[in-house]
């Protein structure tokens, strides 16, 4: 119960801080929209496979940039303050949940714009949206932990990408496959394997993060 209230407070703090500056949200949104537009100007029209893969690659880079901020922006003093009032588990849970919301919102807006400029038909829109949900979940669980590691190592941008890309590739491959199934409008039973493995990997990543974060956060 204590964990629950702590997570609630920390999450509220994250959202309020974001609402006041709107820096991360607007920045990443602009990042996504301009990458979509650059791709549109470069490609003009795309084949369905390229359409799908391109979308996920844009989202991958946007997500790395969005989540990388979550620990790097915290000042040393503020981290010390968290240390006195909250448990490490509640901090990582709150950050992860906040990142899920942020990425969900950005991915949805990106999908709408992407769909608007690049004409393409979605065979099973509901499954595609579910894939986007799973994608935001996977990106935020993996990247939150790696951003914590990268921020402790002092070196931000490059290290974050180097550490997180190999870890996210298996998830990304599953997401691309799943969203391709959704795009082609295949029967949903075809995709059960991918959904199962994605959820399983997320459970593993979250539980490992919960176990390891307490060791990571105190210097």
């Amino acid at each position, binding site marked *: 119960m204590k964990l629950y209230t702590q997570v609630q407070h920390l999450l509220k703090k994250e959202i309020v801080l974001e609402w006041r500056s709107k820096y991360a949200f607007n920045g990443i949104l602009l990042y996504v929209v301009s990458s979509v537009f650059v791709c549109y100007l470069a490609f003009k029209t795309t084949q369905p496979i390229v359409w799908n893969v391109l979308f996920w690659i844009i989202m991958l880079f946007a997500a790395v940039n969005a989540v990388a901020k979550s620990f790097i922006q915290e000042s040393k003093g503020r981290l010390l303050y968290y240390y006195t009032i909250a448990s490490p588990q509640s901090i990582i849970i709150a950050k992860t949940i906040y990142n899920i919301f942020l990425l969900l919102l950005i991915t949805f807006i990106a999908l709408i714009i992407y769909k608007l400029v690049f004409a393409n038909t979605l065979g099973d829109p509901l499954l595609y949206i579910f894939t986007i949900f799973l994608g935001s979940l996977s990106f935020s669980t993996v990247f939150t*932990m790696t951003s914590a590691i990268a921020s402790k190592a002092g070196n931000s941008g490059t290290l974050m990408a180097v550490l997180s890309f190999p870890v996210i590739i298996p998830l990304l491959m599953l997401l691309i496959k799943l969203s391709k199934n959704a795009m082609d409008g295949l029967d949903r039973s075809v995709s059960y394997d991918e959904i199962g493995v994605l959820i399983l990997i997320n459970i593993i990543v979250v539980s490992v993060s919960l176990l390891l974060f307490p060791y990571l956060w105190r210097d």
Partner: protein
Amino acid sequence: MTIIYKKWWKILGTVLVFYTLIAGFLFKVPAKVILNESIRNVYFHVPVWFAMLALFGISVYYSIKYLRTNNETYDLVAVEAINTGILFYIFGLVTGMLWAKFTWGEAWSGDPKQNSAAIAFLIYCAYLVLRSSVEEDQKRAKISAIYNIFAFPIMIVLLFVLPRLTDSLHPGNGGNPAFGKYDMNSEMRIVFWPACLGWILISVWIATLRFRIRSLENKILDK
């Protein structure tokens, strides 16, 4: 840790590897289409992967031990196990590529397991980059131990779960039977399993030697 100074398992490993070198090339193997005599590579290609996995497993075990005790020796064991593991990764990849060249036609045929192995290699390169990016010894040990433990389950999924979901040329994936079920008879097994044990022991021996050299170097530097 005193076991690393014992002799018996090093002798056992050497004997087993020499046994597989002789038996692997001279014993009878089933004649199969496409594979032909190249089936003997299973005595070398698969055991070095096993050795690599054993080393990475050891390094995760010692990373966990490091986080619990903050003893620098354990960090040294973890990093040397990974360094040796990367060496065996290269052995596994090269033997696999040679084999693929003769049986599948191309050294790199885009097989899911090959691709997964390449990604797993990136994980451990990232581990080494992470280590070199932190100056302070204790901080470096702690952060890299955390990344090592974090990445290990993902690597297991990458190598053993994902290839099974797609079509693969490797046995045991994409509906093909795993080794040991149909494609290996009892004559092959009496070479194969000793080979696995032998290569694991030899790889651990190399790792312990590296570990001992490094700890001696540290001792001299501390003086």
